């Protein structure tokens, strides 16, 4: 089930969680980060001061797992940035890509070498739009932690505080989808749903053990039907699309005032908004219709921020030129359409038409099932273009689910492509990843082998699955 169903997230008011945040989170503004009268973060005698965000709050504790120097040779290698090497070599050591190239690329002696003949290598697949952990399996009411649907703007909530690391969905995304990094977003009930978190797709006892070191935050925003329905049905603003824009603009104006007020009391929501206005926090904007995306782009110019990606964007193909000129990615499905009014004009050619215009394409899932097959979804979108003579190379299609996603998430300097010095997030496929008949055979994250289809003990099993029917089964 898609998490584009804000009613799924009728979470009870998390009063205690919000209270805890107020004590622990900190400002990004550098000027309004005080809870008491102390300044500069220094602890004065008798004063209580919360840590600043820049000092590290909820910091990642992820460390690459032990890995051995490994090479894959003889495979078809898609580098994630549009290149392909036949019979290529990928060499990883110390968690990084150390070398890659053609068949004559030297491979040191005494390292693990996998014969890749007939197989394919890609960077780890990246999903820019997931709700794993926030809407985990089993999808019971008690687990519906993805929408703080109690106010139309909740920029103060952080998706990472809802992530349940025992969600079995993480392991399916790894084993069947080759997903090595993913962005967990709040849902779309709210105009401003809260901060996202980017995770390494490694099993962990804590969210912090998955948190992608150095990944920027994003703020999830939502256009259209969901916010106006959720709040309009409660007799409060917004109940219309014009109401959506009005509430957004008022909220941005208040954030600008906050940023300019040296004496303002700390405000978690506004700290996030100011982070966006300063370019430190990205915007991931759920938006289906072309006309609404155009409105959002003008609102962003009015307030002084940038949109990294429009998510779902089923009508992006109508404004590929505008999206290209504004440097905005479209994170889209291949074939979802017609399930809600604003998805009525979904077509299979969306990605291909965007590519034709030179706009940035990302294929996303928003779904615990589709995240296991982003490669297949991308292939569908590619085929739709080819039928119209829009011939998009395989290597470019792989870029839609690797480097383009990483760029729109702000992690492209670290991962998303196979380049020397980048994280060794690598998938070895047992065949062409753009074919329905292929599956990941091995997946490395930071050079550590985290899934091996040939070794049953290398299938992660979450705590929830222990002692249950099918524990450790192929899934």
């Amino acid at each position, binding site marked *: 089930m898609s998490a584009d169903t804000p009613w799924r997230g009728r979470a009870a008011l998390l009063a205690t969680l919000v209270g805890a945040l107020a004590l622990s989170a900190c400002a990004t503004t550098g000027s309004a980060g005080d809870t008491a009268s102390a300044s500069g973060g220094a602890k004065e005698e008798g004063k209580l001061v919360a840590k600043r965000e820049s000092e590290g709050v909820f910091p990642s504790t992820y460390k690459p797992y032990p890995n051995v120097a490994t090479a894959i040779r003889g495979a078809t290698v898609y580098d994630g940035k549009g290149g392909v090497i036949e019979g290529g070599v990928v060499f990883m050591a110390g968690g990084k890509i150390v070398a890659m190239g053609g068949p004559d690329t030297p491979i040191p002696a005494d390292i693990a070498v996998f014969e890749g003949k007939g197989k394919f290598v890609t960077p780890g697949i990246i999903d820019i739009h997931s709700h794993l952990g926030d809407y985990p399996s089993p999808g019971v009411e008690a687990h519906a932690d993805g929408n703080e649907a109690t106010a139309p703007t909740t920029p103060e909530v952080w998706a990472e505080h809802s992530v349940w690391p025992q969600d079995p969905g993480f392991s399916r995304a790894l084993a069947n989808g080759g997903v090595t990094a993913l962005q967990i977003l709040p849902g779309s009930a709210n105009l401003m749903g809260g901060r996202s978190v980017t995770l390494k797709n490694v099993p962990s006892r804590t969210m912090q053990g998955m948190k992608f070191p150095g990944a920027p935050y994003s703020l999830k925003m939502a256009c259209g039907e969901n916010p106006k329905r959720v709040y309009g049905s409660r007799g409060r603003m917004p109940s219309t699309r014009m109401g959506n824009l009005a509430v957004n603009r008022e909220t941005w104006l208040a954030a600008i005032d906050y940023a300019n007020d040296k004496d303002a009391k700390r405000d978690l929501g506004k700290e996030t908004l100011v982070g966006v206005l300063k370019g430190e926090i990205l915007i991931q904007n759920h938006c289906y219709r072309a006309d609404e995306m155009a409105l959002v782009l003008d609102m962003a110019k009015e307030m002084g921020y940038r949109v990294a990606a429009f998510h779902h964007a089923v009508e992006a193909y109508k404004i*590929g030129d505008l999206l290209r000129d504004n440097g905005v990615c479209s994170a889209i499905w291949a074939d979802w359409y017609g399930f809600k009014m604003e998805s009525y004009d979904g077509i299979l050619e969306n990605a291909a038409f965007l590519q034709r215009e030179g706009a940035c394409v990302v294929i996303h899932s928003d779904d615990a099932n*589709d995240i296991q097959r982003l490669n297949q979804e991308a292939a569908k979108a590619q085929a739709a273009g080819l039928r119209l003579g829009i011939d998009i190379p395989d290597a470019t299609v792989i870029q839609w689910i690797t480097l383009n996603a990483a760029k729109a998430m702000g992690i492209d300097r670290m991962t998303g492509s196979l380049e020397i010095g980048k994280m060794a997030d690598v998938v070895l496929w047992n065949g062409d990843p753009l074919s329905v008949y292929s599956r990941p055979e091995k997946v490395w994250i930071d050079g550590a082998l985290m899934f091996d289809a040939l070794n049953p003990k290398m299938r992660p099993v979450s705590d929830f699955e222990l002692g*249950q029917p099918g524990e450790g089964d192929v899934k």
Partner: protein
Amino acid sequence: MKRLLALAVSGLALAAAPALAQDVTITNARLVLGDGSEPIAGGTVVVQAGKVVYAGPEARTGQGNAAVIDARGAWVTPGLFATVTTLGLADVSAVDESNDITAGGTPFSAALDAATAINPTSQHILVHKAAGITRAATATLPSGSIFAGQGAIIDLDGDAQPVVQARAFQMINLGEGGAAEAGGSRAAAHALLRAALREAQALVGKNAIPQTTAIDKGDAVLLSRFDAEALVPVVTGRQKLYVAVDRMADIRAVLALKQEYPKLDLVLVGATEGWLVASDIAAAGVPVIANGLVDLPETFEQLGATQSNAGRLARAGVKVAINASTMQNPRRLQQVAGNLVALTRMPGATGMEWGRAFAAISSVPAEISGMGGKAGVLKPGALGDVVIWTGDPLEVGSVPTRVFIDGREQDLTNHQTRLRDRYIDLDESDRPKAYDW
């Protein structure tokens, strides 16, 4: 033409003169019969008067003025058969006004008849025809009781007579969903089912004279006397009973119903944990419309979920079709079947060989739907539903180039193709896009 046109639509037949069925011969095909066999190179299929008269390896020519199409080696298959769907019952599922899939406010449940509500020119029907689906089982879903109502078999040609067989099956939910509808527990669902079947049994042979009063709770009617009458064909085995269940224990409980009601013609729908009781299902001879790629414990009744479910059931001897209702939309049937083929290459997994996987979205669902030998298969006497594809029909990205239903070539235009054609470029230098059509 609807040779299997059933009771309910006789009135509709007056609405439009049936178009003449066409003859068509397709040669030089990579021919898939749909019966589980592997593709035939250089195959030929001959359709006359809307029926298949030949499908096989030899090159034969059609008779009379039949159009002859050289497929030039392209894949040619029977039309896909999608089950269970809601095609034709909603324009936009989240737009309530357009949605006839559920009816939480009605006092009726089992009496609901999907055939009365099918919109043959629904965009979903047109879009799915363009995806190679030519026939479908379509049904309302449970919304006020454990009984969903009576599903129909439809064709997707968009003409005035979509219903091939009305009231082909009754569908109920006996898992978590049914428990919720029945008042809150599985025990309540089973009690309601037994009460309903007992009432239906009492009506058998009495010309459906109402003998029962409604079973209700508060303002909610769980079973009206009209619903009880609608269950007479179920209890007498003249109408199939599709039972949606996932948990191993729930499946066992369904199979046990046969001991109390021996005439029930049962079909399991979903059966996520079916692999855990595969031999029992096989022994009972109950077919399964199985979830194909569900591999998450999305509910507590799906803890054992694995993509190998369908393959393991088939290996145990169960007749297995792929359930269209658990995918984003039924046009993903081909992708799901292709993934089952992919599993054959994965250590520890159980998938299906190509021919069996294709059959699971063509002839097998047709057989389960009572259209064995008629739909989802190319053999003499079958309906002339034939699809020519751009490539391997189980590969993502393959789509039909031509679709024939009852031997008549179909127009594959729909809202999506028109949008595609309009936005083939963004040039508005002369006039806005609204003039481009």
